């Protein structure tokens, strides 16, 4: 008789903070105490609160422990599992309120600040079930939607249901999913395909990985539903090889689904058959672009092809194809089961349902959050994300990764949905949300994302292959202190050219980080080229490290730390000090900052 369940996150985040060792240690302890038949360990997918991993939740009490180490395990077993006493020092009960709660009274997960405003649809099973068990998925109504579709609905009913729900593609573009399916259904052809885009490549984004790691069956079920709707009998999941856990769990899930007859011939005794394959991506960002992805599945170099023809007409192997991303698919079974009205009741007028964001950057709770569309950026950052650490000021948030733009502090009350973001020159993207504080140079930030796209350009079309590189060179010129006001105009012109002339979405959106920062932070660009200063103190060539000779006590630590031997003793002894102060030779300084971080007396500053 199981009296207690211990759920431990086995997602990539917690795995890298050694959750596996915690699981092994726990199993060992339980065995040594003879408790293995009473207490069940469940390795789950991601809980979302990755910054505090490894995380553990013990039921039936629902006690949530964070930052659990191997050394904590004996105490958890002895105190909590044997004696029923909560290990208070590990309890996570940050409700977001100013006064911390008494840790002896654990709050439920849904009451913590991080989870309170979240609403989990796509992530509903992540952190709840064992993703390697099809039975646990079925226990959560898994494959009921597929059964309902095959037994009670026509393909047109399915498409109408998805259309009515208002679901839009979660991969970035936000194209209405129902409409996409209806196009593919309308395309003539005896062979059609369903493709799942799991080539998640935006820096810092890991929504899709978490779904595949935490709830792989939901994707299989959704793809089979899509197959039924459009008349496809075969599907491919294109997933990055860099996601080994996701690949493993998806493979296990596909095997299990085949065993249970949920994939293969005549599913649920119907005429509908569906087979699913996994294809591994080799790490090219451009393969997340739908036509490049299909070219890659076909065995060719992953490069985009012109649209039209659109995949719904001529896609994989030249056949009509529906391609959706992981998060889009993850919503499908719930929409079928709970009805389109239920889904459409969440969100804003044009953006229904929820959206998963990967919170990162200068924010307290980095991790994965799922919120109803229309939640304000302020709620995401301050309430869910716990605000900016170290009392710094919020400057901007970057959404949409290298294809996106930024939302400045002045627009922090923007309700986040597809159209509001587009209206301010930003985009939803796949859901990366990087928070920046006052120490971020916006020119440098644009440069960071552009470096990424320059590196990831497939090289097929001229504007992206050469144009983005020239754009980066212009930015480098500006951050190196060699820019002019004309360069800013040139930058803008080239951005607009690349946007209008590139072959695929990667190139067309590559200038967005530059255009968005030019729109909201033009004065920072001007400071770089006119004053030759980086206001945030980031761009090295525009900085000088200076020693305040009156504050310098002459300890010489900075000179020792300096890797370039650019700090020298002077003849000057400041009043009240015994030793002569030091000075930095600005011509030789490599601006590494070692002197500044080593000075305990606040004598060094960057200007």
């Amino acid at each position, binding site marked *: 008789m199981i009296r207690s369940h211990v759920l431990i996150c086995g997602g990539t985040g917690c795995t890298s903070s050694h959750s596996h060792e915690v699981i092994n240690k726990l199993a060992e302890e339980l065995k040594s105490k003879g408790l293995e038949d009473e207490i069940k360990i469940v390795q789950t997918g991601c809980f979302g609160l990755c910054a505090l991993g490894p995380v553990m939740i013990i039921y039936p009490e629902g006690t949530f422990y964070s930052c659990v180490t191997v050394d904590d395990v004996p105490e958890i077993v002895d105190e909590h599992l044997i004696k029923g006493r909560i290990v208070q020092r590990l309890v996570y009960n940050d409700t977001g309120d100013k006064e911390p709660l008494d840790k002896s009274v654990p709050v439920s997960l849904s009451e913590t600040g991080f989870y309170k405003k979240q609403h989990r649809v796509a992530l509903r099973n992540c952190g709840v079930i064992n993703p390697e068990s099809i039975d646990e998925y079925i226990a959560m109504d898994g494959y009921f939607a597929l059964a309902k579709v095959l037994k009670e609905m026509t393909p047109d009913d399915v498409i109408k249901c998805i259309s009515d729900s208002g679901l839009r593609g979660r991969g970035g573009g936000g194209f209405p999913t129902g409409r996409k399916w209806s196009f593919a259904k309308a395309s003539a052809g005896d062979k059609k395909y369903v493709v799942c885009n799991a080539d998640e490549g935006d820096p810092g984004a890991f929504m899709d990985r978490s779904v595949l790691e935490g709830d792989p069956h939901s994707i299989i079920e959704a793809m089979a539903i899509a197959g039924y709707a459009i008349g496809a009998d075969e599907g491919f999941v294109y997933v990055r090889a860099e996601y080994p856990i996701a690949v493993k769990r998806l493979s296990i899930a596909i095997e299990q689904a085949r065993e249970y007859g949920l994939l293969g011939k005549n599913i649920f005794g119907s005429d509908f058959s569906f087979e699913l394959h996994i294809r591994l991506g080799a790490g090219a960002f451009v393969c997340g672009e739908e036509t490049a992805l299909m070219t890659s599945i076909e065995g060719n170099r992953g490069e985009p092809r*012109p649209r039209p023809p659109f995949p719904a007409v001529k896609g994989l192997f030249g056949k009509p194809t529906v391609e959706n991303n992981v998060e889009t698919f993850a919503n499908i079974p719930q929409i079928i089961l709970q009805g389109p009205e239920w889904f459409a009741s969440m969100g804003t007028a044009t953006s229904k349902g929820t959206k998963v964001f990967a919170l990162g950057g200068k924010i307290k709770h980095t991790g994965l959050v799922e919120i109803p569309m229309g939640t304000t950026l302020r709620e995401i950052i301050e309430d869910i994300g716990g605000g900016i650490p170290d009392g710094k000021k919020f400057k901007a948030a970057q959404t949409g990764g290298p294809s996106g733009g930024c939302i400045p502090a002045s627009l922090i009350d923007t309700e986040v949905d597809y159209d509001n973001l587009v209206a301010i020159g930003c985009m939803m993207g796949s859901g990366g949300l990087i928070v920046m504080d006052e120490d971020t140079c916006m020119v440098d930030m644009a440069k960071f994302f552009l470096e990424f796209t320059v590196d990831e350009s497939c*090289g097929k079309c001229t*504007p992206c*292959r*050469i144009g983005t*590189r020239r754009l980066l060179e212009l930015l480098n010129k500006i951050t190196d202190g060699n820019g002019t006001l004309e360069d800013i105009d040139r930058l803008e012109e080239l951005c607009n*050219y690349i946007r209008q002339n590139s072959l695929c979405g990667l190139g067309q959106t590559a200038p967005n980080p530059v255009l968005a920062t030019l729109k909201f932070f033009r004065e920072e660009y001007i400071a770089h080229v006119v004053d030759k200063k980086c206001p945030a103190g980031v761009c090295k060539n525009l900085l000088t490290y200076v020693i305040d000779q009156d504050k310098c006590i002459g300890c010489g630590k900075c000179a020792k730390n300096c890797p370039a031997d650019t700090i020298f003793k002077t003849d000057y002894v400041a009043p009240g000090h015994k030793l002569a102060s030091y000075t930095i030779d600005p011509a030789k300084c490599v601006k590494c900052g070692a002197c500044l971080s080593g000075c305990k007396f606040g004598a060094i500053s960057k200007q």
Partner: protein
Amino acid sequence: MEMLNVKVNGIAVSVPKGATILEAARKAGVEVPTLCYMKQKNEIGACRICVVEATGARGLVTACVYPVTEGMEIQTNTPKVRAARKTTLELILSTHDKNCLSCVRSTNCELQKLCYEYGVDSKAFEGFKPVYELDYSTPHLVRDNNKCILCRRCVAACHEQYVSVIGANNRGIDTCIGQPFDVSLANTPCISCGQCTAVCPTGALVERDDTDKVWAALSDSTKHVVVQTAPSIRATLGECFGMPIGTNVEGKMVAALRRLGFEKIFDTDTAADFTIVEEATELLDRVKNGGTLPMITSCSPGWVKFCELYYPDYIKHMSSCKSPQQMGGALLKTYWAEKMGYDPKDVFVVSIMPCTAKKFEVGREDMSAAGDGIVDVDVALTTRELSRMINRAGIKFCDLPDEDFDPAFGVSTGAAVIFGATGGVMEAALRTANDVLTGKDMKPVEFHEVRGTNGVKEASYNIAGMDIKVAVASGAANAKYIMDKIKSGEADWTFVEIMGCPGGCVNGGGQPIQPQHVRDTVDLKAVRAKALYDQDSAMKLRKSHENPVVKEVYDNYFKGSYGCKKAHHTLHTSYIAREKYTK
């Protein structure tokens, strides 16, 4: 067919559903510039030079691949379009080796032409530019990626040949066309056809220039420098001097070669007549004595190399006859040298060929009729190289009088002339086989079924009570079709003609460059071939065995009949099963 009505710059045209903006524009007589586009071969929308504005489309769209819709209004010449194209050209130039003054493609470069038309600033963008080493590894071409604009037309041409040894490597600004795993071209199964060089818009892919070797020989007083010209050159050389495609310039070509200083100007057509009598003899021998059938022609060195690389177990199907180029050289260094009292070592044979693979062929093993390591042919030049020699020598080609080939190897037949077109060798062989088997002088001489530019042609004939099934294929992809049939045992042909290039020699990799918009709209293969068929029909001698030179050589030099021992020694060769990728 459903037609759509559109307007291009206000000009109304109707085009079939599925047509692109470019097709509509061409129909309206509006030229839209292209660089990467090759009709039906490379529709990839990569270079972005063809952008236009169109109603119903977001922003700019690429005319080459964007389908028109009913009522679409297209503008190809707006300030926005011109500015975008100019920037595209300026970006391309920022990574382009701008040594245009001495580039072999100067004045015949599609990029140069557009840059001139759009008034680009060649220094508008400066910055990182990858630097590449040139690939000199093969005898037939040179790749200079510093001049490559990544249009990938070469990749498409190679793919069309079913060879596909080149493709894009690396990514971003480091993207370059190259071979798998960066091996040099010589270590790939490249068949040397040179189709890539014929479609390159710039000087990134050019034939290996061997003209210096010829200039050196011409000024060497100890050498007897003679030249022979392949059947198809007369039908194409005029294009290099601005003449209409399909102009037969045989007389001016001979005059130009004479002015360049060659001691004798011979016609490879004469050698082609030898090829026919030897090949026909070999075929009849194989038929009678149970030899390997079908027998396949071996005139095209691109095809021969293709067979050696891709079907090494089937090389015995190829006729052991040397190609006309090699037969010509062999006869010049044996029979003719002896007749002239020259030491074969002092005879320097230059051949003018439509083909880059001929440069590979001259260096093949088992190509020395005179022995002592004396090669049959010293240098093979392409049509393009010859045109450059003519220009450099200050010869006003268009103003030249028509002159005749020199005797001995100046007499040829219509059968040999048509060697330059796909199906020509087959037709020539059939003319001779027919007469030999029936003992009659058959009229009319034409075999229309094997003519035309289709990639694969099949026909069957009853000659002297014998049913002969034949096939003709041109282009290596069609060679694959033939070989796969042979491999699977489905082939019931007796004799097959295969040419490595689509359409045969008139469309060889060494032929004059025509810009892609011309290649898209004119069937070069057909127009050039017509010049050859016209010449054939106007000739008195139209069958190879009627050539008096053939009779003279067999009677007085080989001292035997077709296929006799001495003829075999002089005119036949052998093949090698080759490995695809080598180190």
